[in-house]
């Protein structure tokens, strides 16, 4: 069974240095998060509150989207709707063409990654430049993010130093992080200065006031949304919340869960383009609302919880699988536990069904999730969807795709015998008698492990000898 995913995982597991790097980074992030929540009762209360805020928003999603659209439109923001990433890309392109723009400066946006916007625009002869430092670095190297909030986390300082030197020969080689940062600042300042269109994602959209909220540390998000005359925000339709008072609790739990910061350096709240009495800010603001499978997820009461996600990355930071295989092995835009449940739902079990097996179901992701998404339960549910027969009862694309007749028959037989005690006991006795026939090599399991040695006497026999009679 050597699939692309398995090959990538094997490759990643062989990279000892990168693995050590990930281990160190994730340990730091976990410690930072823990330090932000010294009082567990307060943390749990805040998680319940954040869950209620997101669940409430989803329960009113169509109404809130209408309200958001109305509020934003009234303030002069142009709202666009896209069912697919293709449509979203076309919308961005047509805005750029209207302004004859040849380049776009981008703040960090995972939805734009989902759209494959950079490649799309480049094919149209438009330069799409990432301005978040991590995104800028990986873009220089032609890579994709390996983490949703720390895109260049897989790269060491030495690699980044070399990369800067290769791409900008005028800049002397340095491993000094302050100097590297200063170089990036200088290069990108020019780009902010000249760009005619800026693009950003959205962390939360407030229906009540028509406000787009952006969380960031560097200031590139503020630059991208303020300096160019046109600002395009792209986001998923699930990001809306009902009231402005819903924002402070979410802002309180997001950065603490993500990087272990009490708050990010900037929290940027945008409610409209430049007004007549203002002297800066974009004169045009567009919001592109992307579906791309979200409304499909919305139709299932259990899977719906997936859409509560506020993209903090805590599940990723705490995942024992992610820390070993890294973000690129997943082969998806969103890696780690959230990617494991989101990507197969968006793109179907045929393409990414294998991801749901890449979990030990240890439960860490569900325990740290700030909006209490039961990620392990959803993984289980998707595993079930992948083999279920009554595929009409789930919205998951390609449900039943992993169903094998033999496996299904074995489970049916098991289920039947388990509900017939005498047969079950008889089978148990026979299996016990024949236990010596279990081979030493049992496929993949024993490739890296020694097969367990069976005891001379069964547990039943040993207990009987001790005088314990459980039946």
């Amino acid at each position, binding site marked *: 069974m050597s699939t692309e995913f398995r090959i990538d995982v094997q490759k990643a597991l062989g990279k000892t240095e990168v693995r050590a790097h990930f281990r160190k980074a994730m340990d730091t992030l976990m410690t930072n998060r823990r330090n932000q929540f010294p009082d567990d009762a307060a943390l749990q209360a805040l998680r319940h509150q954040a869950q209620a805020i997101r669940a409430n928003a989803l329960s009113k999603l169509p109404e809130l989207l209408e309200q958001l659209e109305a509020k934003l439109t009234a303030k002069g923001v142009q709202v666009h709707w896209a069912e697919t990433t293709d449509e979203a890309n076309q919308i961005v392109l047509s805005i750029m063409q209207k302004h004859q723009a040849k380049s776009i400066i981008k703040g960090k946006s995972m939805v734009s990654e989902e759209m494959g916007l950079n490649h799309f625009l480049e094919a149209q002869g438009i330069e799409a430049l990432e301005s978040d430092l991590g995104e800028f670095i990986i873009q220089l190297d032609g890579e994709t993010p390996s983490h949703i909030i720390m895109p260049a986390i897989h790269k060491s300082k030495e690699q980044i130093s070399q990369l800067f030197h290769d791409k900008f020969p005028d800049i002397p080689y340095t491993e000094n992080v302050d100097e590297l940062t200063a170089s990036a600042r200088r290069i990108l300042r020019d780009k902010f200065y000249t760009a005619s269109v800026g693009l950003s994602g959205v962390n939360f959209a407030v229906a009540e006031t028509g406000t787009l909220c952006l969380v960031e540390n*560097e200031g590139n998000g503020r630059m991208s949304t303020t300096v160019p005359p046109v600002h395009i925000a792209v986001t998923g339709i699930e990001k809306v919340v009902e009231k402005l008072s819903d924002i402070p609790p979410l802002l309180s739990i997001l950065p603490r869960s993500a990087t272990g910061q009490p708050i990010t350096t900037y929290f940027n709240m945008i*409610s409209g383009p430049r007004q007549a009495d203002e002297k800066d800010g974009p004169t045009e603001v567009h919001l592109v609302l992307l579906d791309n499978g979200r409304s499909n997820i919305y139709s299932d009461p259990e899977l719906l919880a997936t859409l509560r996600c506020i993209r903090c990355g805590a599940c990723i930071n705490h995942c024992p699988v992610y820390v070993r295989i890294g973000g690129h092995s997943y082969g998806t835009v969103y890696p780690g536990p959230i990617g494991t449940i989101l990507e197969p739902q968006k793109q179907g079990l045929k393409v990414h069904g294998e991801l749901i097996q890449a979990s030990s179901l240890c439960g860490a992701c569900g325990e740290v999730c700030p909006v209490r998404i039961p990620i392990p339960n959803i993984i289980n549910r998707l595993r079930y969807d992948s083999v279920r027969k009554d595929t009409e009862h789930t919205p998951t694309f390609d449900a039943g795709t992993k169903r094998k007749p033999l496996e299904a028959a074995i489970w049916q037989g098991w289920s039947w015998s388990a509900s017939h005690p005498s047969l079950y006991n008889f089978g148990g006795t026979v299996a016990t008698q024949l236990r010596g026939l279990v081979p030493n090599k049992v496929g993949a399991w024993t490739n890296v492990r020694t097969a367990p040695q069976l005891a001379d006497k069964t547990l039943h026999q040993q207990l009987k000898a001790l005088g314990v009679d459980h039946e």
Partner: protein
Amino acid sequence: MSNARTRIFQRLTAVERPVVDLSARESLSRFAWDKEERIRRFTERMQAVRAEVHVSDREHWLDKLAEICQAKGLNHLLLSPNTEWGQAISQNATRFPTLKHYDRPIEAWKHELFHEVDAGLTSTLGGIAETGTLMLWPNGDEPRLLSLVPPIHIAILETDKLFSTFAEAVQQQAWAEQGMPTNAVLISGPSRSADIAQVLAYGVHGPKELVVVLV
């Protein structure tokens, strides 16, 4: 793309709405810290992210500010002449670096703003003690880029506008009720990043230094 909109809404409205337990939603986070405690926490948080905090009062802030400008060797200071602070500074212009005013649209003086301004001074709508945060509502007098483009941002914060939490500020200042400005921003330190090997670096794209004067 209105077809896309119609189809998205068709799918969203076709399903039975989930029933949600909302009991936890409304709790308002706030702390019973007195003014002194709020100032202490605000200062501690700000300093932890390498912001400067200078404690002053309504009588002495002008001296303090002149001192700061001199210590930093500023050649220019960008400000609005129309705010309470800007007026006082303008009346004492000889004690300050060359004052500049953001009195034209950005297009008219973009190059100068990006290359020939050492520091921008703004007022604030208030502060948040829990996280060490300034709240700004930029407007025609104090535009958005005033606190973003110059390498140093100096902000004046009145201590009686220092709230314990963001939730408390939003409620007491009635943000939702009065309607949001085109841009509101929370600032909690100088611009920073840890994207290179998790090493913290300051002054990435926004101001390299944040200076807060408490009055």
